[in-house]
């Protein structure tokens, strides 16, 4: 009986951690975040998890853009914009992207 209860507890913990985990793909699929022309992830539907995820991903992207800009003698924003164009191009249909007019649209 005790063993069964422990296994149930472990199962619940695993399930809960899985439920809490949110990756970019999942967030995009859920319509929580989307790609923007400025090269950064934007929050489509603000939830604490979506904002935290976008902040984390964008911090990493900025580091990458900055390294590329320094390597190529260009600006961080120029790199980010080019990356944003590519990211929007690569976004699968059904996910949100930000249009030039600032509106979120489903690709």
């Amino acid at each position: 009986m005790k063993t069964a209860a422990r296994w149930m507890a472990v199962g619940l913990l695993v399930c809960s951690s899985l439920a809490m985990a949110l990756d970019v793909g999942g967030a995009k699929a859920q319509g929580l975040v989307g790609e923007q022309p400025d090269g950064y992830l934007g929050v489509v539907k603000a939830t604490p998890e979506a904002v935290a995820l976008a902040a984390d991903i964008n911090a990493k992207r900025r580091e990458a853009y900055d390294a590329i800009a320094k390597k190529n003698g260009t600006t961080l924003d120029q790199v980010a914009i080019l990356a944003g164009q590519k990211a929007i191009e690569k976004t699968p249909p059904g996910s949100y992207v930000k249009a030039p007019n600032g509106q979120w649209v489903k690709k």
Partner: protein
Amino acid sequence: MTPPPSTPPAASPPPRFRWRRRLLLALLALAVLITAAVAGTYWWLQQQGLQLQGLGWRNGAATVAQWQWRQQDCLAAQGRGLRVERWQPLTLALQQLKLQSCAKPGPRQLPAPPPAGLPPFTLRIASLQAPALPALAAAVTQQDNRWQAQLAQGADKLAIDYRSDNGQWQAQGTLAAARLTPQLLGQWRLQASGRWLPGQLHARVQADGRQLGYQGDARRGDARLLATLHERQWQLDATLPHALPLAAGWLLQPRRVLQASGDLDGVHSLQADLLASGPQGRLQLQLTPQDQSLQRGRGLLLLDGKDLHARIPLQWAKRQLTLAAGEARLPQGVRLSWPQAWQLPLSASGSSHLPFRLDYQQLQLASNDGTLQWDDGRWQWQGALALAGRHAGYRLAGQWRGQLDPQGARGTPLQLNVSKPPLALAISLPVNGIDPRQPRLNASFDGHYRDWPLKGRLAARQQGNGWQGDLAATSRLPFYSRGGALQLAANWHGSAGKWQLDSGSKLNVAEGIVGGVLLKPLSLQAASALLTDGNRAHGQLALSADGAVTSRWTLPPANGTLQLAGEQASARLQLPAWRSKLQLEARRHGAGVIGSVQLDTPLSAAMSRGLGVTLQQGQLAGTLQGQWQQQWQLDGDVRLSDVALDWGGILANGGRGRLRLAARPGQLQLQSDGPLELAQLDVGTLLQEVSLTLRSDLQDWQLGDVHARLLGGSLQADSLHWPSSAFQTVTVQQLDLAAVAALQNDPQPTVQLTGRVGGTLPLQLLPAGIALQDGLLRNEGELTLRVPASAGVNAMAQSNRAVQLALDMLSELDVNDFQARLAMQQNGLLDARVTLKGVNPRQNRQPVVLNYSHSENVLELLRSLRIGDEISRRVLSRKPPAVTRNPTPETSP
């Protein structure tokens, strides 16, 4: 001869035994007599209505535990603890004697004087209780037809002296007014005298009140009450020689307030004329009986004053007082009205239906079914109360049903709805168990303010003249789209207009979303007691915030203190992770707030997360003055020093300057105060000592007095406007071609240049890019061009005769005329048409004219200005011009 025997005489007891027998018989007879007497006395006492219980003998004295004296079916007196302390003279002690009236309907008789010829006696009563009197200590002695009595309660005493042989009596005593009502001050002195014989009673009683007053009022007054009784006829005259202070600043005006006469069975005449005046006006009561028994009469109660008005006819008949339906205007604008007559039984117990309505401004408190009951000094009101109307802009609606009495209230919880858009609260206050002497209230409330849900509980209990309790409330900040639960827990105390939240009271705001911002939990805790009078607050709060996150930037945890000082408030906040300090001060100004913000922080890369620029170092200090009236505004200046930053591949350092800032809702103005300076700006080509002025609203950027050192020369523009479709002139002067050639960054450069050039570069500055039109660079003095021999040059020369001739001519050229016409499109494509006129000193100074055209993408060209390197490298290698580099960033982590 022997005499004949005769019957011997019976043996008679000895005389000693006979005496004993007779004594025994006598004692037996005496016992029988005593028993008979006691029994007879007991029987007689019982016949007289006296019943004894607990007869006994203790410590040499006879005792009676309890006794009662009934007159027919009326219990006239009862006592307990009777003890015969001495038999001669008779001395009795009684613990308690309770007297009750057994008067019967019908003509009343004069009380009979005490019987004459009684043996001397003394009676002491520890507690004498009589109708309408407090418990008294009494001592009565009688000797030789002289009666003396002493009645006392505390310091108040009454001494009575009566001689039963001639009927003369007199009495005198004192009575503190506080015995009547605790709030009264002063003393009554009583003097009485007269004659009391069977069928005859004369009395003259005079009561003088001295220094009468009311607590809290320094005024004092006297009063006199004079009553006479002659046989069955009496007269009463109450006079106020001076105004008599009453409660709440009222004065009973000097006059003969009461005159009455009558006999033992009733009142023959009565004239009451009470006139009181106070801050609110005057009150006058006139009573006029319509028969001698006072069973019927009329009267009038008049209230008159600035805030007081009522004319209430009243009448009484058959032991019932009737107040005609009417209304009374009372102080503070209160109006009391009763739609139907109030009928009050003039009896010690009864009940009356008392519908009423109380109006105060736009508030109405009404009861239609209220009933007042009273019995032997106790009272109780029961019914329903309904409150409705508006007060201070709030709509109030309440109801309650239950009972009220001196012990408190019982009934349903008091329900009160308070609303004033956007506030709406439903308050519930259970009343059961509330002791009016030590009230403890536990109210719950539920409602909302705007979109703020409000729910909580307020406990309060009286503490001295004030209240104290605790408050627990929950809400949710409405501007949070998610989360933002708010929880308040506070202990409070105070009194009207002066309230305090105790130190430790805490407000917690849970994590939530505002717009796209994730606000981490924050808390405000009272670091000291917070005092407020409802409008202003004093005290200190400690703020602890876990920071904020958006998709682009993060604000680290902050902490600090908030000081409230009435009309002023100040805050000191720190962001330890950034070593930033923020100080805010604000004070109330009219209907708004004015204040200042001071910011002092080092600049660091951690702050740059949301920027297109990375701050490497520097210091920012700013002072802003702000005001929040109908709209907010901020004005001030920001000082930058030792700033180093980069935009990726573009580096800047040594930045300093001062910016004036003006912010309004929806707009921000930046203007430099003096020049903004950069020691170095490396855009591939190093600009030094950059200086400019700036004016911007973050949409429109105007640069003025632009100066920079560039390539040994200078760059200058009087004004540059971005964005603008106009072509704005940038002037370059004294550019050192040797410095240009040095950009080849080659120890053996293909091209060697000397001399200086300058010119104008009309630029079009647009968001889509920079365009150049009709740019012209000319030589400023003589130039030299050298193409020294090298393996590469030789290879080119050997490949083509024409090229060989050109290189021979260019191998050493003194240029006296140089013109470069430049144009560039927004896409960065630059067209350069260069004309060189000069001589070759090594070939007899033959004149040389070289026309050279070149197209290049300026995004790269201007970034590096490695024109010589590019020209030579591409000429030699025939490499097509490079296009803009196309970086391939990582787009996902």
